């Protein structure tokens, strides 16, 4: 076991795969330095032939990754801020996601797209969004969202080895957060949730940076004798409903917490699945917590109000106890 930041874990996982497999390479804007510094050490180890700085050209970055993946290599394309992915939606949704299907299953696209999501650093409206719901809606994509350094390693190993386009959502507020990781790197299969904390009274489902907020809320609620179980899906698609439903079967109550704008969030799909398939387990209404339905504001006080908080989670839990 060693300690490592989330950012470093991502870098180490990619390096591990690049050492294993010469067909893996990284491309993106200024990845040789990295606005968040995540890929800097990759450049030091592998140089410009495998860690490629591109012009400001998200459309071509993703489109080129598609063309490369279709012809024998395994690109990892970086979108510096998830917000910029809006520029490359055609390449992701109309090309990468559909190519295998439209060609009758006769092509594979081993392609990873990294992107830094999330608010909390006063980066304002165009550098702070969480847009994962766009991608879980699109058949043909897998979507991964690690919440810890350990998960980042395991999920990246699987994502890079996967033969389908995988979008990895990284929460930028986690880059500097440390956590324990196993000495030996092992893939975490895509589509397997983890119970991050066991409890009997209520299920809190959370993703990304909301997992640690849920943990904090749970620790505080424990003092009031409320025992929360925390489920982190880790992969948003393929989605592990079994683990979630099992928990709800036990607790009969569920709170869903994600950092997205609440309306139309990925958590809406989870709520819908529960209402369809685990309805009989429920003793109380489902409660979703998300960001307020506004763009991300700049000012610290506004951004704090915007984001779901530990307090919000505690309040929600109590509202259904």
């Amino acid at each position, binding site marked *: 076991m060693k300690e490592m930041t989330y950012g470093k874990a991502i870098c180490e996982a990619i390096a591990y795969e690049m050492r294993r497999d010469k067909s893996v390479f990284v491309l993106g804007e200024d990845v040789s330095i990295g606005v968040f510094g995540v890929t800097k050490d990759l450049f030091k180890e592998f140089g410009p032939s495998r860690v490629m700085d591109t012009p400001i050209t998200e459309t071509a970055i993703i*489109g080129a990754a598609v063309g490369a993946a279709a012809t024998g290599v395994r690109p990892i394309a970086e979108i510096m801020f998830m917000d910029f992915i809006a520029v490359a939606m055609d390449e992701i949704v*109309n090309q990468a996601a559909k190519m*295998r*299907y439209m*060609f009758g299953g*006769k092509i594979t696209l081993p392609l990873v797209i990294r992107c830094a999501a999330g608010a909390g650093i006063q980066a304002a409206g165009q550098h702070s969004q969480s847009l994962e719901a766009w991608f879980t809606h699109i*058949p043909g994509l897998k979507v991964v969202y690690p919440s810890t350094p350990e998960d980042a390693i395991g999920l990246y190993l699987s994502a890079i080895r996967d033969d389908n386009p995988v979008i990895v959502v990284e929460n930028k507020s986690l880059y500097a957060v440390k956590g324990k990781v196993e000495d030996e790197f092992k893939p975490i299969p895509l589509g397997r949730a983890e119970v991050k904390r066991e409890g009997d009274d209520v299920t809190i489902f959370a993703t990304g940076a909301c997992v640690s907020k849920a943990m904090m809320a749970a620790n505080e609620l424990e003092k009031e004798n409320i025992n929360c179980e925390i489920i982190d899906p880790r992969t948003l698609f393929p989605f592990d409903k079994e683990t979630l439903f099992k928990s709800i079967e036990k607790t009969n109550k569920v709170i869903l917490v994600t950092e997205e704008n609440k309306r139309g969030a990925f958590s809406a799909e989870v709520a819908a699945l529960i209402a369809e398939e685990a309805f009989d387990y429920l003793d109380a209404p489902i409660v979703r917590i998300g960001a307020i339905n506004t763009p991300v504001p700049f000012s610290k006080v506004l951004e704090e109000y915007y984001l779901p908080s530990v307090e919000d989670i505690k309040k929600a839990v109590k509202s259904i106890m």
Partner: protein
Amino acid sequence: MKISTEKLISIYEKMFRIRAFEEKVGELFAKGKLAGFVHCYVGEEAVAVGVCQNLDDKDYITSTHRGHGHLIAKGGITKYMMAELYGKSTGYCKGKGGSMHIADASKGILGANGIVGAGFPIATGAGLSFKYQKTDQVAVCFFGDGASNRGTFHESLNLASIWDLPVVYVCENNMYGEFTPQSRHQKINNISDRAASYGITGVSVDGNDIFAVYEAASLAIDKARKGGGPTLLECKTYRYRGHFEGDPQEYRTKEEIEDWRRKDPIIKLKKHLLENKICDETKINKLEENINKEILEAVEFAEESPNPKPEEALENVYTDIIEEARK
């Protein structure tokens, strides 16, 4: 540039195959046998064939919504193509793609594409892959005059230029993007002038002259293969049929079409073959007959092939997950 007799005949054959395939497709569409959006390549055959004749199986192309010609030129097999247009399970894409998505990756065909201009970055990525793997493969991106105004054109040519990628961008300037003439969608005449924005070579040729296309493509492909980077090659040509089958074509005159028919690339090449005694009439007739037969057989194959089973719709989204069936 000298082209061998054998090659010239193969070129004629491919051009004629495209023509025969497309005219049959138009006929079938008019009869209601085919559905969806179908864009025919009739009139532009010299471009696809003149370019692809310089490529190997291991080279790749990206095609467009008007893709049948590219497929045939790159070695696509007409019966699987026709079956795909019919939406049959024996089609290239098992009926999932249709005309706008026909592909044969095993022959280096990265697919027709329903999104205008989507091929630019994909071909660029293929070029990146070849450079990365240090192979001598080349990628060719076919696109139209209309597509040359898309942002993907700019981003892709810029990227390919700074990395000297082995990609040839082949513009089929058929003077229209849908119903809009070139003069109303861009202010330049020669799309190859845009090469200057990327510090690469730009060339314009008569796209109805197979020799001109072949030679220019040969130079560009050779250069790319040897590490010399990308070229922008514009071929001026014309489509005789509507933008898509069913297009009433109110935006142009019959005379304009007739004018272009006089510059028909296939008739031109045939004349050359005969006049230069590269091939005699009997041989050409035989060849044409064979192709016509092949196309009829392709139709037969398509018509007799089974439809996919409805639940097959659930397959092939991922390599490892099959979607849940309807309940």
